């Protein structure tokens, strides 16, 4: 490892170099080990204050960041707000002012607007970690996905990864695409044409509308959640139709190679994008992703929050 980390913020995978991505993954190896100790806490960020600012609700990601911060001995405050109650520009400026006033060292931000973390990163001395911004990026999710693939398969280069589902609205898909391509994987996007436009091919990925052609060739399938609470009706006719065409059913899972990994960023819709038997099966690494998410977030907080301001 010759790379050094010099970033105060983690905004997306698009701007990270291959070396930087690998550096985070290797640092996460060290922090994963901490979870197996009798005392699962290290003093690395003692005296630092982390603010979890989740303008969009998310229990899973917020909890993971919170636990990661606790394990690094940082103090944590959680702030949630509804995006609808304030106009965007005012919210972010006020947020910035408030955070400066609290002497926050690290801000973990989830926001419905793409670019919100960048906006604050440019204005704050504190480290800003993007925990998902609009349909833009969700870097820690992609890093934990990369970590899980690397842990299970020993490498990422040369693997064929299928990302299945709602790609258009998915920041997880975007961050994964940037990360996987940088590390040398082959990526195929699968889903209804309304949610997987051909434009994505410009990023260097393949697009397919026939899941049964892709599954037998994949080394990893990453199923994205159908965000039916957010979905407008015109994108696909209904859940039944989606399951029939793109759901990873028990039958369809038989097409997979025996060593193909099944991933899902959670929360899973059992019986929609994935059948229960498949989600709980031997090929599923969905719970590994949760465990690894903690290690990856500890690494990111340590790297971004640990360097002198």
């Amino acid at each position, binding site marked *: *490892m010759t790379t*050094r*980390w010099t970033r105060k913020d983690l905004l997306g995978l698009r701007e990270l170099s291959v070396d930087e991505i690998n550096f985070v993954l290797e*640092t996460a*190896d*060290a*922090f*994963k*080990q*901490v979870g197996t*100790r*009798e*005392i*699962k*806490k*290290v*003093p*690395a*960020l003692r*005296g*630092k204050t982390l603010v979890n600012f989740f303008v969009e609700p998310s229990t899973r990601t917020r909890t993971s960041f919170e636990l990661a911060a606790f394990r*690094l001995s940082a103090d944590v405050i959680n702030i949630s707000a509804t995006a609808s109650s304030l106009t965007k520009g005012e919210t972010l400026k006020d947020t910035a002012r408030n955070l400066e006033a609290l002497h926050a*060292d690290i801000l973990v931000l989830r926001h419905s607007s793409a670019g919100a973390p960048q906006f604050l990163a440019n204005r704050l001395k504190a480290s800003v970690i993007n925990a998902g911004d609009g349909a833009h990026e969700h870097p820690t999710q992609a890093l934990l996905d990369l970590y899980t693939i690397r842990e299970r398969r020993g490498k990422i280069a040369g693997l064929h990864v299928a990302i299945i589902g709602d790609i258009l609205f998915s920041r997880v898909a975007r961050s994964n695409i940037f990360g996987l391509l940088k590390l040398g994987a082959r990526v195929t996007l699968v889903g209804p044409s309304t949610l997987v436009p051909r434009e994505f091919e410009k990023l260097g990925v393949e697009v397919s509308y026939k899941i049964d052609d892709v599954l037998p060739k994949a080394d990893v399938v990453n199923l994205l959640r159908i965000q039916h609470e957010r979905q407008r009706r015109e994108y696909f006719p209904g859940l039944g139709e989606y399951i029939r065409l793109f759901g990873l059913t028990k039958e369809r899972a038989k097409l997979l190679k025996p060593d193909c990994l099944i991933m899902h960023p959670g929360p899973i819709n059992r019986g929609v994008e994935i059948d229960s038997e498949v989600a709980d099966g031997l090929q599923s690494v969905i719970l590994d992703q949760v465990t690894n998410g903690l290690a990856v977030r500890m*690494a990111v907080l*340590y*790297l971004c*929050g*640990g*360097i*002198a*301001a």
Partner: protein
Amino acid sequence: MKQTKQNSSAAVPVMDAEAIRRALRRVAHEIIERNPQLEKVVLAGIPSRGVEIARRIASFVHQIEKIDIETGVIDVAMHRDDVGTRRELPVVRASKLPFPLEGRTVVIVDDVLYTGRTVRAAMDAINSFGRPARIQLAVLVDRGHRELPIRPDYVGKNLPTASGEQLQVRLQETDNKPDAVWLERE
């Protein structure tokens, strides 16, 4: 703390490969003498050279006593007291102490003992794995200038230095060049 660039004009040799070999063999003998229950001893090396030195000491112990003592890795980066004050973070590596430490004697192994802050961090790290019966310290070179009340139990070489001088250690396995210890003057 540990740099590998060699400034040939002001470099003063301290130990060659043979001196390092003899020093570590002597440390192995001392560990055997001081620990009648040798099977309870665990050598915990601090990356990266401490890990290699621990491996060598264990191999000397095996030669002398025909006993395999356990070795592990104790990373101190996430236990340091200067995180947030440095522009460049120490690289963190995974610790490996895959055995219960209760009732054991953990010997921390490092190449150079200087301020003692790394050793303090190592003791802190070990305690997060469990509660050993005792912790001892073995170093290849003690160069003085302690900033904490820490003293080594086993020393390959005592070398009084000035604080402006840099002590360099190179090992074949970690640095891909023949073993050597030398001093660099500013």
